[in-house]
């Protein structure tokens, strides 16, 4: 019996030693944890209420010629951001008479051109003039990530075909301005 007891104790001791050896060698890894921050742009929120530039009556009603004091409050896009280098692009379409779409008679025009400007994103504001042969300043590039406000404004109005032309009557003249932020690819 003594002999048997001794043998069991020896076996237990061996078993214990065997278990300790198995836990050490089971360690695995390292497990890589990866992710990234994508390049994103957001145009921000128009903090100026309406998304429309309302100019009112375009002409001096005594002469029929384009007013020289046309103005509309600028729009401010707040909270715009790009998480990488980006471009800002401004595009615009001229004011055109909506209902009176026939070709304007001699001496008249149905087009009002203007310059749209998006400032605050780049050192040089992006500008686009409707009716211009080219608009090299319409796209501006920023080399770093940025967040801030963009001020969008319109001005420098002129009659399509020349300011000596009168504008045909129409209760609705409509144009547009588009501002785009884009990641530089």
């Amino acid at each position, binding site marked *: 019996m003594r002999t048997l007891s001794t043998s069991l104790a020896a076996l237990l001791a061996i078993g214990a030693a065997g278990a300790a050896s198995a836990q050490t060698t089971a360690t695995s890894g390292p*497990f*890589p*944890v*990866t*992710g*990234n921050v*994508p*390049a*994103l*742009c*957001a*145009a*921000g929120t*128009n903090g100026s209420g309406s*998304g*429309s*530039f*309302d*100019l*009112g*009556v*375009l*002409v001096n*009603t*005594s*002469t*029929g010629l384009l007013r020289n004091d046309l103005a*509309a409050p600028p*729009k401010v*896009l707040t909270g715009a951001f790009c998480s990488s280098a980006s471009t800002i692009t401004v595009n615009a379409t001229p*004011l055109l008479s909506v209902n009176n779409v*026939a070709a*304007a*008679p*001699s*001496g*008249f025009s149905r087009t*009002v051109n*203007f310059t749209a400007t998006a400032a605050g994103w780049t050192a040089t504001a992006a500008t686009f003039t409707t009716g211009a042969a080219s608009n090299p300043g319409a796209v501006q590039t920023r080399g770093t990530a940025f967040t801030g406000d963009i001020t*969008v404004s*319109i001005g420098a109005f002129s009659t399509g075909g020349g300011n000596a032309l*009168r*504008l*045909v*009557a*129409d*209760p*609705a*003249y*409509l*144009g*547009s*301005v*588009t*501002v*785009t*932020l*884009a*990641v530089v*690819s």
Partner: protein
Amino acid sequence: MRARPALILAGLLLPAAAHAQGTSATSNFTVNASVPGSCAVGAPLLAAGRQVNFRGLNGTMLQIDELVDRTTLSTNAASVEVRFEAICTFPHRLKIETQNNGLWQTMERSSVPPPEGFGNAIPYRADVTWADENLRLNADAGVRRTADNSVFVSGAGLGEILLRLEIDAGATNERANAPLLAGTYGDTLRITLEPVQ
């Protein structure tokens, strides 16, 4: 062992979704305005070289030089052209209106008919040219009343309204070459450009 590939897949999918949704962002604005329909007519100006037996234009008054032939005591011929700078930014109606339907005595107005054989009014014609339209008003002096004529102009117009007044020799409301009663004769013409909706 399956956990590792799952972690790597998640890392690949996230940037793809973000790329589709946010690599560019756009804000759109509209620009609104209007041009009301309106017409304007400038002050009258005498057309050069088109003046016969008219003294000229004093403000808005045209004065005939010699209304009566001193020999026949009937009407002298007279004609004149007057132009007006004008603009209409809308389809409109051109209207010409005479207050008396002829040149009638202004100060000696009476309900009593003139003596037999005498005239007390002078007919004339008014021709208006504007925006490729021609309009005539015959002020026949038959009855003292207002009379008018008008034409619709389908588009905007810009330029000059040309008004030609013509009085024939011997024209009276009695008969041709009838003598005229003494007095001052006159009429008032109105030219109107009215936007038509």
